[in-house]
Every structure is written in C-alpha cells, then in structure tokens.
C-alpha cells in the first residue's frame, strides 16, 4: 500500500482490493460498512468532545478567563472526564413522560447528524458516499434533527420543554429556506450538486473569492441561517437558559443529555464543514488562478489540514458570534428570516444567475 496524505483514493482502493481478495463481495461490503461506521463513531466522539472543549476555551478567553485547566495540560482531558461523569449519572425517569419517545428522541437527533457527516468530503478520496445530489442530501438530513427536538420536548411532560421544542420547530422550518437558498447560489456557480465536483470546481480559487460580492452575501446568510438551524446562540431559543432553564432537554440527564449535547456540537461542525466545503473550497488548498508558485506552496499542506483548518475557522466565527450577541426573541427571529434573509437571498440568487449567465465571476 502507499498512504498518500494528498490523495486517499489509492489508499481506499487498496483496502477495497485487499478485502475483496480474501472474501466475497457481499462480505467485503459488510466489512467496509463496519469499518466506516467505527471510524465515524470514533471521529464523532473525538470531534464532538473537543469541540465542547474548544468552545469552553474560546469563550473563556473572550471573557478574560482561563477556561478548563485542571484535567490534563490546558484541560485537554476535561471533556473526556465530563463524559465519564455523565456516563456515571443516574438516568432520572420522568413521571408521566412518554417513555418510548423520551428515550427515542436523543437517538433521532444523533442519527440525523451521523447521516449528515457521511457525505462530507474530508479530503480527496476520503469520502463515505459521494452522492451526486450531495448538497440536497445534506440539506435534507441536517433538518431531521428537529424531529428529535420536538419529540424530546413533547415527551418530557414539562411545559418548559414543550415551549422550547415548539420554538425550535418554528425556527428550523423557517431557516431551512435560507440554508437551502444560500447553498443554491454555489450550485448555480458550480453547476453541480455533487460535493466532490463542487470542491474540484474550486481548484483555481474558492467560490467566496471567485464569486465575489454575491458569494460573500450567500456565505454570511448561510452562516446566520446555519447557526439558527443548529439552535446555537444568538438563536438558541430552544434552550434559552435564562427563559426556559434548558428548553427541550430540561428533563434529560446522564448519557441522554450527553447525546443532546454532542449532537448540538456535531451539528455545528456539520454546518461549518458544509460552509467550508461549499464556499471555502473544502479540502482544496488556497489557489489563485495565475499564481503558480503560490499554488505550488499551498499544495504542500495536506488537504485534511486544509479541510479541518477551514472548518475550525468557521466554527470560531460561530463561537465568536454566540459569545457576543444577546438572544433574539421568537418573533424577531422569524422577522429576521422572512423579512430580511429571505428577500436578500432571493435577490442574491437572481443576481448570481445573471452573473453566471454573463460570465462576470472570476474564472
């Protein structure tokens, strides 16, 4: 085998042929699925836990604090310790709760984010599935999570949870539109819905540079709408700890609470990953058409690092926003979507279509 960190295609091919050589194609399929599943669960846990840590550190520095610093150097193992604590906690059963739905809700939430992560291209060839309607799939799957939130709020038999869940429902349904339309702008630019094709189309410059002003507007709208779709501050009305104590997960404890917590951070990661894939070139290094030497230097940095670097950057912006702004009220939230984001987005789409038609973007 040759493990090329710039191109994983040959590596995955090698794994496939090696497995095929020892077992039947059916078994190969199964084993590959298991391997991918295990890899994703591990990645999920690690990314989720360290995102929690990163958020705590970032907000701590913003707030002139140190953040977690007791468990391990710079508190690196803090969230792992927290996980063990949550695992050891009692699962409180709620009187008069709908037990089946109550237990089901965290799994729906977590499965939705699992499904979304599957289509993400982490690097060249490092892809679980490369659907030809990748963006559409992501867009569809990432909004499944709200069912989990609604179920959690409904089944908890708590008025606070119910209000939180209903808020979340209204919020996600309306912000879905903006997410979709903002992504559509890049689909118009690149002419494809397949994530790998979109990434390849950015080989001579990312869409946010090539598409100049309309792409930038689309990127900002996507960030806002994506933050809202993941129920993060300043759009965290579903949780709104100063109003609803903890919103839909008020009644959850122990590992079920941890699922909600992890899923929230994974959703943030997914939104950031989509943003970086679609607007910032995904694993594609920073290329500018015509600057060959620069492009060559940039190629030395492996694509995986590019991908995670960009995602981290977008995540940092999301955290920065969260820790700066006060929360919106539910009617303002909907007003922002229907009165500002949606008209701007539609205007933007028309503008992009015109620009693409005239060929006014940087090629």
């Amino acid at each position: 085998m040759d493990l090329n960190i710039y191109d994983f295609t040959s590596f995955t091919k090698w794994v496939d042929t090696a497995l095929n050589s020892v077992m039947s194609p059916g078994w190969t399929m199964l084993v590959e699925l298991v391997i991918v599943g295990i890899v994703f669960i591990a990645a999920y846990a690690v990314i989720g836990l360290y995102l929690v840590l990163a958020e705590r550190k970032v907000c701590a520095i913003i707030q002139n604090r140190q953040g977690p610093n007791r468990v391990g150097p710079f508190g690196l193992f803090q969230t792992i310790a927290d996980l063990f604590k949550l695992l050891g906690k009692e699962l409180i059963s709620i009187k008069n709760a709908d037990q089946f739905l109550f237990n089901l809700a965290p799994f729906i939430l977590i499965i939705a984010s699992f499904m979304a992560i599957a289509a993400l291209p982490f690097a060249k060839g490092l892809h679980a599935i490369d659907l030809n309607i990748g963006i559409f799939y992501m867009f569809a799957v990432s909004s499944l999570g709200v069912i989990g939130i609604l179920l959690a709020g409904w089944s908890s038999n708590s008025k606070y949870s119910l209000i939180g869940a209903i808020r979340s429902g209204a919020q996600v349904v309306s912000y879905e539109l903006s997410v979709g339309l903002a992504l559509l702008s890049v689909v118009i630019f690149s002419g494809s819905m397949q994530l790998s094709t979109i990434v390849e189309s950015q080989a001579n410059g990312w869409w946010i540079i090539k598409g100049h002003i309309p792409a930038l507007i689309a990127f900002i709208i996507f960030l806002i709408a994506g933050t809202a779709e993941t129920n993060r501050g300043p759009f965290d009305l579903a949780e709104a700890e100063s109003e609803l104590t903890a919103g839909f997960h008020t009644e959850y404890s122990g590992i079920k609470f941890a699922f909600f917590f992890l899923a929230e951070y994974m959703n943030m990661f997914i939104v950031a990953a989509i943003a970086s894939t679609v607007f910032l070139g995904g694993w594609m290094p920073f290329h500018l058409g015509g600057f060959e030497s620069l492009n060559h230097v940039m190629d030395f940095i492996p694509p995986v690092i590019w991908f995670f670097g960009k995602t981290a950057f977008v995540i940092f912006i999301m955290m920065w926003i969260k820790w700066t702004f006060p929360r919106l009220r539910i009617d303002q939230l909907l007003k922002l979507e229907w009165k500002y984001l949606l008209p701007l987005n539609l205007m933007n789409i028309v503008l992009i279509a015109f620009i693409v038609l005239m060929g006014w973007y940087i090629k």
Partner: protein
Amino acid sequence: MNIFKYFGEVFGAIRSLWAGMRVTGYYSIRPGKVVTQQYPENRKKLVIADRFKGEVIMKHDSNNQHTCNGCGICELNCPNGSIEIISNKITNAEGKSERIIDKHIYHLSMCTFCSLCIKTCPSNSITWGQDFEHAMFDRNKLTKVLNQPGSSIRKEIKEVKETKEA
C-alpha cells in the same frame, strides 16, 4: 417600503453588530488579559488585606499572654450570641477576689462579621484574623476557644488600667 431605508437598516444593524464583535474579538486574541486567579496554586502569593475579616482571634504575645480580663462586653454586644465567656473567680496575691477568664468561646458558625465585639472591646484584646479557609467536615470544629491553653493575662496592661481608673 423605501428600499434605501431597508438597506440602511440592514447596514446599520451589521455595523452595530460589528461594534460588539470588535470588543469580544479584541479579547479573544489576547489571552494575556485573563484576570482570573488560580486559587489553590497561588496560595503562597495571595495578598489578603490586613483588615480582612476572617475570624475573631485573641492577640497573644510571645509569653503566651493576652489582655482579656473577661469583662463580657463583647458577649453583650454580639447580636448573634456567637461569643460566650466563661470566667473564674480567684483570689489574687493581695487577697482580693478577682475575675479572670477561663474560656473565651467563639462560634464562627454563628458570626456575622459585624465587628461590634472588636470595636467595643475595652482592653483591645481581640481582633480580626486573616485566615479565610474555614471549611470543615464537622460543624463543631467551628466553635473555637480564643485564649490559648495555658495563657495568662498580661500584668502591665492591667496595672495601667488600674492607675487609669484611680
């Protein structure tokens, strides 16, 4: 709706949001501005103000002597009953009966740190100590005897007082 007003609103909103993000952004890249202290680690260099009201203590000199004559004014002045004074009557060398302090009991758990006992103490024998780590596993340990075992009243102060009274 005026289209310019609409876009004016949008840009005004973005500007106001950016003003806030500048403040947090300024701090987010300056870990040096961290103000929190790491408490158990910095114990050695902690600066406690010398007037800090940690607990009531009785001043003892190097001869294990204090100036408390057990008059009970602090006990009277304490609003919570957190001071109890147990005094003994003894006959001194001159044959007069005299009251000396046996135990100056101080219930830290009931103290509200109003410093009335210290302000009213006529012989200036109790004061604030700066110890602030009072956490105990047993509530009874918060009841303290302020005069150290084997301590005695300092003579010269008593004489000074007597001459003053005379």
